[in-house]
């Protein structure tokens, strides 16, 4: 999943973001929950594990918002792997 954020070095030194998201937020808090869906209306025998995440983010005006989403286990593992990559790179920059 490669993004399409473009950087314009020549201008201000601040990266330019594309139309999809104009505002960069700071992460204030990261909360997680490992859940297991056991049974549901559409399927009595589910046993489907998932990771639920709650992010607390602040925009440049200081306004704080909560964003939550769910990931399947494979999605989480991909998320974790990407973060490890980021950590490795940011260390060497």
């Amino acid at each position, binding site marked *: 999943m490669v993004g399409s954020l473009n950087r314009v070095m020549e201008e201000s030194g601040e990266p330019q973001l594309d139309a999809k998201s104009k505002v960069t937020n700071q992460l204030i808090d990261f909360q997680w929950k490992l859940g297991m869906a056991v049974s549901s209306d559409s399927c009595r025998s589910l046993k489907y594990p998932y990771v639920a995440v709650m992010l607390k983010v602040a925009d440049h005006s200081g306004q704080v918002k909560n964003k939550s989403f769910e990931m399947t286990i494979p999605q989480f593992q991909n998320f974790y792997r990407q973060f490890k990559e980021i*950590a490795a790179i940011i260390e060497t920059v």
Partner: protein
Amino acid sequence: MAAELEGSKSLSGLLSGLAQDTFYGHPGITEELLRSQLYPEVSPEEFRPFLAKMKGILKSKFLGLLFSKQVFRSQNLPWIEGVPGLSAALNMSANMENPAVAAGVEKSIASADMDFNQLEAFLTAQTKKQGGITPEQAAVISRFWKSHKTKIRESLMNQSRWDSGLRGLSWRVDGKSQSRHSPQIHTPVAIMELEIGKSGQDLYKSKCKDLYLPVWSLTNGLHLEAPESEFLCLEFDELKVNQVLKKLSEVEESISTLMQPA
């Protein structure tokens, strides 16, 4: 059983049609629609028990396989033993032609310990039974299972997922060496863009409530535009990245402790 019912040609279409309602949560495929499109020569009275039988196989056996130990293991997912009240062994030699029995099977809880061999064994047993299925039909069902199980599983999981999901993730690391506004030197920053959005399920239901779905579309699959996503852009310095990483490793640890030894 009518000769037409014994054939396997239309069975694929029938299974797809049943799957739409049973697994994908798309109602509107009526018994009459399936009969008239796929088995026009068969009378409704003869068709009904046949449909019930196939529906029963789909709902009980397939569901059992979808969330069986084998499936979990093959996807490196944790397998939780003994969740109370969930597994009930079904006696599949029960009279499936009886609509009442079939209806009961539909609502039943599938045994979560079945594997693919058991499906094959069950199908083989059904071919030997009086009023069961033909070997060709068994092959069609088996083939249908193999090609659809991942989609069906995802669809069922999606239907029980009401919170937004993570649709996409992209990132880059910038090495800021200077800034117009402050003389900071060498503060690398990670910029991450998360695409968060709801599953397509809700949108589909509202769009297709009154829509007449032609049977051909069931075997070809239906594609829908996804609802609008939210793009969340986050900035992390090295410290923050490591803080989050620590949390993620805690999640990973929790997942591992749930893995039961074989």
